[in-house]
């Protein structure tokens, strides 16, 4: 394994307007960082834009949903023997300049997975988020944060954040088994069950540059029911330990 190999996993569905900027920002942040864009069945040239910006691109033949798209990235990272992966959304809401905050606990060996939280307590005013999600979304975020905190006996404030970094152990586990639809919430329970060390760090997030949230009002009730069911089942189901990287 080549030491210090790092990859950024960027799932993108019809983000042709934003994904090029995200890849460029990542490359500017760290030229040695490999960037993998997982084009989740886009119809707007997302893959071509990402490749032109210098990313590796995996194009899925049709839309598999965010969970399967992100897992494709973890499988890539696992197969290629990366030691560390960050994942961030292709719409530009996650700022690559916040990455040092995510990487610090991993580099110090204090965590297996680090989640960038919009709601974690901050020390400095400059770190405070101006961005407030819509009320309905906030209710869902708080509900799942409380439920997951209760189930995992650990205080988590932002279970829906897709701004994360994880080490090889986390990559191996998620490459073998990752939830669908609304994956970050359920993945937090998986992290607990696999006894991975999860650390939340406060980060600022930006307004989405393009597109709209994949969670629409009509579907949110279905998601809340489905994810709640999955969380409760997740507490009692069996987990298999994935094999080591090839």
């Amino acid at each position, binding site marked *: 394994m080549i030491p210090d190999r790092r990859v950024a996993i960027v799932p993108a569905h019809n983000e042709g307007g934003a994904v090029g900027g995200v890849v460029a920002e990542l490359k500017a942040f760290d030229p040695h960082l490999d960037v993998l864009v997982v084009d989740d069945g886009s119809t707007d040239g997302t893959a071509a834009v990402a490749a032109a910006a210098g990313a590796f691109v995996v194009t899925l*033949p*049709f839309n598999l949903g965010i969970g399967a798209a992100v897992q494709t990235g973890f499988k890539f990272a696992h197969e290629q023997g990366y030691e560390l992966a960050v994942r961030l959304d292709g719409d530009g809401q996650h700022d690559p300049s916040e990455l040092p905050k995510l990487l610090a606990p991993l580099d110090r060996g204090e965590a297996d997975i680090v989640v960038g939280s919009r709601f974690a307590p901050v020390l400095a005013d400059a770190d405070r988020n101006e961005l407030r999600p819509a009320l309905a979304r906030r209710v869902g975020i708080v509900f799942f944060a409380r439920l997951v905190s209760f189930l995992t006996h650990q205080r988590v404030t932002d279970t829906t954040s897709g701004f994360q970094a994880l080490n090889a152990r986390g990559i191996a586990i998620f490459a073998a088994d990752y939830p669908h639809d609304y994956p970050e919430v359920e993945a937090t329970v998986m992290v607990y069950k696999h006894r991975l060390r999860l650390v939340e760090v406060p980060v600022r997030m930006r307004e989405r540059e393009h597109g709209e949230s994949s969670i629409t009002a009509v579907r949110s009730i279905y998601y809340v029911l*489905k994810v709640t*069911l*999955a969380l409760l*089942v997740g507490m*009692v*189901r*069996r987990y298999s330990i994935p094999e080591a990287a090839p």
Partner: protein
Amino acid sequence: MTPLRVSIAASIASLLLLLVVLELIRGRRLKERYALLWLATGVVLLVLSAWREGLNTIAGWLGVGTYPPAILFAAATLFVIVVLLHYSTVLSKLTDENVLLAQKLGLLEERVGRGEAKENPDGR
């Protein structure tokens, strides 16, 4: 009035359905996405079976007050139809995606084969 034995048997049957569905999810043989409809079926049938007065009232509204268990059959049938219809839409989507996958694979094999032929022109 619903015979007590019908209520007991129907309650046990709905409970069994719920338990089987939950165990299937726990063993990862059924995805949550496809389990929600079955859980709704189980819960509604359980409520209708166990809540005898409610069943009688609903039967009265629908003009079958002389034989309320008919509502149990009607509810069960309705849910089975909804589940089947849902599966038909899922099946249609899977068919489309399967065709797309096979086409992609065929095109990819052709491309790989052409690349290999270019590298080894004598066929070895």
